[in-house]
C-alpha cells in the first residue's frame, strides 16, 4: 500500500519537476528541476520493481548526462540574452498544441478498460536481467557500444569544426 502511494508521489513529483524545468528562467534552475524529475522517475522505477533500470537512471542520466549539462551551463556567459528572455515567439501555439496532445492521450486512457494484474517482477533482478541481456540481446549490446564509439568520434569532430573559426 505504501508502495502504491509512493509510486503516485514520485510520478507527480516527476511531472512537477518537468513543469518547473519548463518555467525556470535560468538554465541552471531548469537543470536542477530536471535532475529532480529524473530522480523521481528512478523512484517510480524502483517502486515498480525494475531495479536495474532505476539504478541506471540514476547513474547515466543524473550522474552523467545532467552533470555534463551543468558543467556546460557554468561554462557559458550568464548575460546571454537567451538566459533573460525565456520564451520564443511560439509560446501560445506551443501551449495549445501540447495541451491538445495531452488531452487526446488522456481521452484515450480514459476509454481504456481495467488493466490486468501486474506480472511477476522476478525478471528484473540484476542477475536474471543481466543473463537475459547478454544471452538474448547481446547483439544490441554490442551495437550500442559501436554507437558510443561513433558518438565519441563525432563529438571530437564537432568540437574541432566549431573551435577552428569564429563566425
Amino acid at each position, binding site marked *: 500500500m505504501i508502495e502504491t502511494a509512493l509510486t503516485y508521489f514520485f510520478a507527480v513529483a516527476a511531472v512537477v519537476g518537468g513543469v518547473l524545468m519548463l518555467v525556470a528562467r535560468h538554465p541552471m534552475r531548469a537543470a536542477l528541476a530536471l535532475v529532480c524529475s529524473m530522480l523521481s522517475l528512478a523512484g517510480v522505477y524502483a517502486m515498480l520493481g525494475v531495479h536495474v533500470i532505476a539504478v541506471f537512471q540514476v547513474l547515466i542520466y543524473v550522474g552523467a548526462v545532467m552533470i555534463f549539462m551543468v558543467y556546460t551551463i557554468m561554462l557559458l556567459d550568464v548575460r546571454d540574452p537567451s538566459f533573460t528572455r525565456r520564451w*520564443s515567439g*511560439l509560446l501560445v*501555439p*506551443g501551449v495549445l*498544441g*501540447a495541451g491538445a*496532445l495531452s488531452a*487526446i492521450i488522456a481521452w484515450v486512457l480514459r476509454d481504456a478498460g481495467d488493466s490486468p494484474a501486474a506480472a511477476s517482477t522476478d525478471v528484473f533482478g540484476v542477475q536474471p536481467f543481466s543473463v537475459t541481456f547478454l544471452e538474448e540481446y547481446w547483439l544490441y549490446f554490442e551495437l550500442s557500444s559501436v554507437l558510443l564509439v561513433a558518438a565519441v568520434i563525432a563529438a571530437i569532430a564537432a568540437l574541432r569544426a566549431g573551435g577552428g573559426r569564429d563566425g
Partner: protein
Amino acid sequence: MGALTLIVLLPLLGFLLNGLLGSRLGRTFVNVVGCGLPLVAFIVAALAVRDLAAAGYPTVIETVYTWAAFGDRSFEIAFLLDRLSAVMVLIVTGVGTLIHVYSTGYMKGDPGYARYFAYLNLFLFFMLLLVLGRSLLVLFVGWEGVGLASYLLIGFWFSDPEKSAAGKKAFITNRVGDAGFLLGMFLLWQALGTLDMDAINAAFGAGPVPGLSAALVGILLFIGATGKSAQIPLHVWLPDAMAGPTPVSALIHAATMVTAGVYLVARLSGVYLVAPEASAVVATIGVLTAFFAATIAVVQTDIKKVLAYSTVSQLGFMFLALGVGAYGAAVFHLYTHAFFKACLFLGAGSVIHALGGEQDIRRMGGLARRIPVTFATFAVSTAAIAGLPPLAGFFSKDEILWYALASESGGSVLLFGLAAFTALLTAFYMFRLLWRVFMGASRMSHEVEHHVHESPPSMAGVLVVLAVLSAVGGFFSIPHFLEPLLPLPAIVPAMEHFHVPLLVLSVALGLSGLALAAWLYAGDASRAAQLEARFAGLHRLLTGKYYVDELYEAVLGRPLEWLSRRVFLGLGDRRLLDGTLHGLAGLARRAAGGFARIQTGSLQAYLLLGLAGLVLLLTWSLRNG
C-alpha cells in the same frame, strides 16, 4: 542454310564487314569484300537457278524463320525461287557485281570509299530480300530497305545540302507510294489472312474473293509501285536522285531498284488479271509517263538528267506492258533495260570521269576519238535503247508495242500510237545525246580538254561486258521463258497480220530518230537552235519539266508549311504545349514560393508544425480507428 538464304545474307555480311571494319582495313579489303561477296552471291544464284532448271522449274520455297504467329495465321520469312525471281535475282546480282567492280575505279580516292561499298552491299541485300521474298511483308521490308539505301546513296556526299535534299525528296516521295502499298497489304491480310504472294495469286485465280475488290487492291499496290518506279505523279524524285554517285544511278536508279514496282505488279499478276480496271489504270499511267518523260528528255542538257528521264520513260513502257497483260514482255524490257541503261549510265560516268566532273552536254562534243571504248559501248547501248535490230532493246520494245496494239486485255490503237511516238522520241533524244557528247566539234574548255583520258580497265571492262549484253541479251526470249508462269495475253484476231508491218515500223521509228538527231545536230547544231527559237514556249515548258515540282510546291509544300508554321508550331507547339508546360512550371514556382514561407529556418517552428501534425494524425486515427 539454304542457297536462297545464303544469296541474301552474303551482301549483308559485306555490309557489316565494310561498314564496321572497312575504313580501318584499307582499300584492298574493301574491294575484296565489296566486290567479292556480290560475286559469290551471283555464283550461288546461278547454281541455284541451274538446279532449278534441272528440276524443271518447280517453285522452290525456303522457309527461314517464323516471324510472328497468332492463332492459325503467321508471318514467315520465306524465300521463293521460280522463273520470275530467277530472272530478277540473276539481274540484281549480275549487274550489281559489275557495278561494284566499276565503282572500284569510279570512287577511287573518295574519303567515303568504305562507306560507299557498305551502302552498296546493303542495297544489294535489301534488293535480294525484295525479289526473293515469298511474303509481301518480306518484300515490303526489302522495298523499304532499298529506299533507305537509295536515300543514303543519293545523299552520299551529304555535305552538299542540295544532294542531301535530293535524298530526302526521294525518301519522302516514296513514302506517299508506300502508304498505298501498306493499305493494299492491309486489305489483302484482312480478306485472305495471308501475305504469301503465291497464295494471293492462287486465291484470286480461284474466283472472286468475298469482301475484297481486286481492282482496289491492284490500284493501291500500283500506287506503291508508282512511288518506287517513278511513275506519274510520283516521278519527281528520280531525276533529282542523279545527285548520287553515277554507279549508284546506274545500279539503283536505272537497273534494279526502280524496276521493283514492275516486279511487284508482275509478281501479283493474279490480282491484275482479274482486275481489268486496275490494269487499265496501270497501262494509262505507264504510257503517259513514258510519253511525258521522253518529251522532257528531249531538251535536257545534263547528261545524267537525260538518262534519268529516259529511265522514267522506259519504266513507263514496262508499266504499259503490265497494263495490257503482257507481264513477260514487261520483265523482258526490265531485263534488257538493266543492261543497256546500266551501260549508258556507266558510260556517262566514264565521260564525267574523263572530263573531271563536267555533266553539261553543251560543253562536250568530239569525244569519240578521245575515249573510244566509252564511245563504242555508249553507241551500242544507245542503239539498243533506240530499238535498232538486232540489239536487245529492239526485241523487248517491239514486244511491248505489239501487245499495246494487239492484246485482248486492254490493247488499243491509242496506247500503241502514243507508245510508238514515244519510241521515236526515245531514239531521237538518245542519238541527240550521243551526237552532242561524242560527235561534232569539241565545245570543252581548253583545260578540261587537256585532261581528257580513257577510264581505267576496271571501268572500261565493265562497260564492254554490259555493251555485249546489251547487244545480245535480246536473243534470250524472256517472255517465252516466263510463259509457264506469266502467260502472255491473247491477241485480237483482227490484228494478227499486223505483226510484221509493226516490226518494220518499229525499226523505221528507231532509224528516223537517228536521222532526225543527226540532221538537227549536224555541224554547229544551228538547226536545233532555230527550232528552239521558234517553239520557245514549248521549249520552256519542257525544260521546266511541265512545272510539276512547282505545282507540288504550290499545292502541297506551301499549304503544309503554312499549316506547320501557323497551326502546329504557333498554336499547337507554342500555345498548347509550351503554354501548358510554362503554366505548370509557373504554378509550381508560385506554390513553392508559398510553401517557402513555412521554411522559416527556425527549428522551433518546424517542431510546432510537427506537433500540429501529430495532433491531427492522432485525432484522425481516433475518429476512424
